[in-house]
């Protein structure tokens, strides 16, 4: 006889089409019978959750970015003491970029009743490019938002000026030679980041009115600002072109460098959102892995049968590839749509809590969920399903289940896929590594420890038997406890895997819970309600006592006084500053003047990163300096280097004694350079302090300004309010996301408990046929589940605290404080949850005749 050909005569369709048709038919039938339900649900849930979280977080991130650009009133700002060169303007027009201009100068503002040195800001029609101005008819009342500044002839003045000049809206003021009608109280500017010498109250006029005032003369100190906005790539191209030409007179500020305190807040917000997203990705992967394992187990008989019917291993592979592709595509479409709906629903539910008019999500946010689902499907479901091609057709005769894929390989593939997904999602190698090694340590550690714990249980059980025999103190356990513990010990390997599974799921849940409570609390606490919101500087040494007395009398909390002078770094060792900037490609503007101070005490929000802080009272002839570490890194400065400063026209050198990490968002006075003594002989400098003033006490500023006319004041209460608003909005959003993830995590936990019930059902049914009472079976199962929960909870708590330590110290830059209670409520809640779910699921075995259970299992 001849060998059978590839296409026997009875085969009416080509092999490929035949297999595709068979694959789809089998899939449809599996779907109809409910076999695929768990896989469908976990895939849909995974794609929908990740898509919704990704859309939600992406839109919030974009809004944060927009909000940050509002702080600059533009995407970038070029400012300087000389007018902006025409060549730059032309280039910007060619690109084209949106632009606005303003100039700022100090001038005396007069009314009939008084006068006040003010900071005048003369703005063009298009100012601000981003964000809005807040004005009101009267000072200190609710504001309305407007898109642009005042028209020519009108001045908007800071609330404080109404009192200081004894004027009201509609009244007149004079700036230089020009008269202006007061149009409104100017309550908020998007870019009000008053530099340290911009402490006088604000008056905003139109740019066209400047010549009329004649206040700007040759030699006047004027700051020219040029604001630009466009999409990111346009801005990047322009910045790249402009930066080398900036020179000493101009500086470029972008969103990141606009406001350091805000930048930290934003970075943490991004970190939280990223963590939430990553955790949802991991949970989804776990859910899909569990569902896929169950599904592929159920496919073994089908494969063996198909093989007896003549399907080749190649056919089997093709059939499962077609099925996986179909499942993947269907869930991708439906899951993404569900995710979009869910995120819309979230936004509706959160109306009023979230920033209004959230920005659009980027396109990538739409497919992050789909990619997660698709990759998880191929990483977790494909290996065991595709390995079914090796199923021996003979296994159908012996009714044995053969695991065609080595568990180690499954784990490896799944683990690598999860890491790739987390990296794909976060694009953050550090976060990915922390989560990877954390997870690896957990898997290994938990496996080892749970083995040990079961050995201990075994020992306890043996003890209850042996002690009885030699007549000594017998440790009697009630039968249900003994049976429960025996079960636990009997399925040693299976239970170690179970406990590992539960612990890791519980660990994720605990991290989510802890992150949403502890981290957010700490974050909010960083700017406690009475954070200093005003700075007073230019305080003469002789006035320190009087100023502090006035603050104390008014019951105002204030920080210590710091001396302050201005100066530039001119040399690092023998290198000129320009050389260093070129060598190290530092991005900050190092040529600008810095605020310098000297102190014996290290600020509470400063930490020494390298070198040593000088001891209090340590007298040294040598001038020493402590530099802020990021600034130092940008210029390649290290401890022991010599810095040359140019201060008030004089040159002084100081040795770098230490590098400090400064918490800029503490709102305390902080400096790039702190000397150990006054850098110039006999220089006492001006002094500086910060204090908290409640909104209703704002008038105190006027009293202070009148009593000490030379003292300059900066109001940063609006900036603090903005940061607090962002923190509170983001906290709410994150809490909501965490609840969502927590919900899906619990579902995964419950389904993983249920997936392991078959074996227990079978044994319990056998016990019942042997005459065990319902209560004995129920209680022993309860003991077994609660003990497993207790062990898993204990391990998860340890793992969660370790993860929190790394997350808090490495990702969020927050202080780690151990929470002892976590080791109590972790194991207890895990025990209760797993015990309860197990008990609920085993009701079937208690109330159904044992024969039915045995038939179904």
């Amino acid at each position: 006889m001849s060998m059978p050909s590839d296409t026997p005569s009875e085969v009416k369709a080509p092999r490929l089409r035949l297999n595709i048709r068979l694959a789809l038919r089998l899939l449809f039938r599996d779907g109809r019978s409910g076999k695929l339900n768990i896989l469908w649900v976990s895939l849909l849930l995974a794609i929908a959750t990740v898509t919704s979280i990704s859309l939600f977080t992406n839109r919030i991130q974009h809004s944060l970015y927009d909000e940050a650009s509002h702080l600059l009133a533009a995407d970038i700002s070029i400012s300087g003491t000389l007018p902006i060169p025409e060549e730059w303007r032309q280039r910007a027009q060619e690109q084209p970029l949106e632009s606005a201009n303003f100039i700022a100068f100090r001038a005396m503002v007069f009314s009939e009743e008084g006068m006040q040195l003010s900071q005048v800001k003369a703005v063009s029609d298009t100012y601000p490019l981003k964000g809005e101005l807040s004005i009101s008819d009267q000072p200190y009342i609710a504001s309305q938002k407007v898109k642009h500044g005042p028209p020519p002839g009108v001045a908007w003045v800071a609330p404080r000026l109404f009192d200081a000049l004894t004027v009201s809206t509609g009244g007149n003021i004079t700036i230089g030679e020009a008269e202006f009608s007061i149009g409104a109280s100017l309550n908020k500017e998007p870019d009000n980041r008053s530099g340290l010498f911009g402490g006088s109250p604000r008056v905003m006029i139109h740019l066209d009115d400047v010549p009329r005032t004649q206040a700007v003369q040759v030699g006047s100190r004027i700051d020219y600002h040029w604001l630009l906005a466009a999409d990111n790539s346009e801005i990047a191209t322009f910045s790249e072109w402009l930066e080398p030409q900036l020179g000493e007179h101009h500086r470029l500020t972008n969103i990141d460098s606009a406001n350091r305190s805000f930048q930290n807040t934003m970075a943490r917000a991004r970190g939280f959102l990223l963590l939430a997203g990553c955790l949802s990705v991991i949970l989804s992967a776990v859910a899909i892995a569990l569902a896929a394992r169950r599904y592929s187990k159920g496919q073994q008989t089908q494969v063996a049968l198909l093989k007896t019917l003549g399907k080749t291993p190649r056919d089997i592979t093709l059939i499962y590839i077609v099925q996986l592709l179909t499942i993947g595509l269907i869930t991708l479409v439906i899951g993404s749509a569900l995710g979009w709906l869910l995120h819309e629903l979230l936004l509706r539910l959160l109306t009023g809590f979230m920033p209004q008019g959230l920005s659009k999500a980027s396109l990538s946010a739409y497919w992050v969920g789909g990619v997660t689902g698709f990759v998880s499907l191929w990483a977790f479901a494909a290996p065991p399903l595709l390995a079914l091609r090796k199923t021996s057709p003979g296994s159908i005769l012996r009714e044995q289940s053969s695991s065609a894929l080595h568990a180690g390989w499954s784990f490896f593939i799944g683990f690598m896929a999860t890491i790739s997904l987390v990296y794909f999602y976060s694009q953050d190698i550090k976060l990915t590594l922390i989560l990877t090694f954390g997870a690896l340590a957990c898997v290994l550690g938990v496996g080892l420890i749970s083995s040990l714990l079961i050995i201990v249980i075994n020992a306890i059980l043996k003890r209850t038997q042996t002690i009885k025999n030699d007549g000594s103190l017998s440790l009697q356990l009630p039968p249900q406890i003994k049976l429960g513990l025996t079960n636990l010990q009997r399925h040693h390997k299976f239970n170690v895997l179970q406990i590992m599974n539960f612990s890791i799921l519980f660990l994720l849940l605990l991290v989510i819970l802890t992150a949403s409570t502890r981290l957010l609390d700490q974050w909010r606490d960083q700017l406690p309600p009475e954070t200093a919101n005003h700075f007073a500087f230019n305080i003469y040494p002789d006035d320190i006592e009087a100023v502090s007395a006035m603050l104390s009398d008014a019951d105002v909390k204030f920080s210590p006084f710091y001396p302050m002078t201005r100066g530039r770094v001119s040399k690092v060792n023998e290198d000129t500053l320009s050389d260093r900037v070129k060598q190290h490609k530092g991005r900050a503007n190092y040529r600008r003047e810095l605020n310098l101070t000297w102190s014996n005490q290290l600020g509470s929000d400063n930490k020494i990163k390298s070198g040593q802080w000088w001891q209090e009272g340590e007298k040294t002839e040598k001038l020493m300096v402590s530099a802020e570490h990021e600034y130092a890194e940008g210029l390649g400065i290290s401890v022991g280097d010599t810095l040359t400063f140019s201060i008030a026209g004089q040159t002084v050198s100081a040795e770098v004694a230490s590098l400090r990490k400064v918490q800029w968002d503490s709102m305390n006075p902080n400096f790039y350079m702190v000397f150990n003594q006054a850098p110039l002989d006999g220089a006492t400098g001006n002094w500086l302090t910060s204090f908290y003033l409640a909104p209703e006490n704002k008038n105190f500023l006027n009293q202070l300004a009148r009593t000490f006319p030379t003292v300059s004041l900066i109001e940063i209460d609006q900036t603090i309010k903005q940061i607090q608003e962002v923190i509170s909005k983001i906290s709410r959003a994150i809490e909501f996301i965490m609840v969502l993830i927590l919900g899906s995590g619990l579902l995964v936990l419950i389904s993983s408990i249920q997936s392991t019930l078959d074996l227990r059902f079978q044994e319990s049914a056998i016990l019942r046929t042997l005459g065990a009472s319902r209560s004995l079976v129920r209680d022993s199962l309860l003991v077994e589940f609660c003990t497993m929960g207790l062990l898993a909870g204990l391990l998860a708590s340890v793992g969660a605290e370790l993860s929190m330590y790394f997350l808090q110290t490495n990702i969020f830059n927050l202080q780690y404080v151990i929470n002892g209670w976590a080791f109590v409520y972790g194991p207890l809640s895990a025990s209760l949850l797993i015990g309860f779910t197990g008990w609920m699921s085993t009701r079937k075995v208690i109330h159904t005749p044992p024969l039915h259970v045995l038939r179904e299992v």
Partner: protein
Amino acid sequence: MIDGHMTMIKTQNVQHEVPTHGGSLRILKGIDLEIKPGETVAIIGASGSGKSTLLGMLAGLDVPSQGQVFLNNCDITALDEEGRSRIRSQYVAFVFQSFQLLGSLNAIENVMLPLEVKGESSAATKAMQYLERVGLQERAHHYPKQLSGGEQQRVALARAFACEAPIIFADEPTGNLDTETGSKISDLLFSMNAESNTTLVLVTHSPELAKRCQRQLEMRSGELSEVSV
């Protein structure tokens, strides 16, 4: 084409060993066997004597450690799994002790499965004809869970004959059924076999079932001997 003068199944010195904790266990010890087309053969023997293992080897579900198995003169031991699959699709059908119906498929879909595997365009019509032959046309849309043991085995018989293969291997076809149902199933099996003129190789414990076959072979400790009927 099947040549009526040739052997349908032939083995030469088939031996099989499986690894155990202490070394290896010889399950089949030099089996030589010839079965002609259309013959009905029963393999009897005690539990664990190697009957089902031999059945698996004869059907190409497994490969012996040594020796050769020929199906219609083709040495299936020389083929890889892909090749054996193709042989099975053309020559072999099965009836199992525990029915092995797919739970997610109803009765007619279970019978349609081999026809769909072959790409038959009129799978549903043919499957219904076979279900009628086993008297289950009324229960065509019931799932295995909703059928009794006897009904499930009738569906399995319909599925096996729907393969329209020249050989049917039956592994304890009545082993999971009571005597009365078992006897009905064996009646059905033999009558369908006679109608289709297929070669039937069955493994059984039941002397009654074995007696209905033309030949009886006994497995004893891995060795096969002809029982004179």
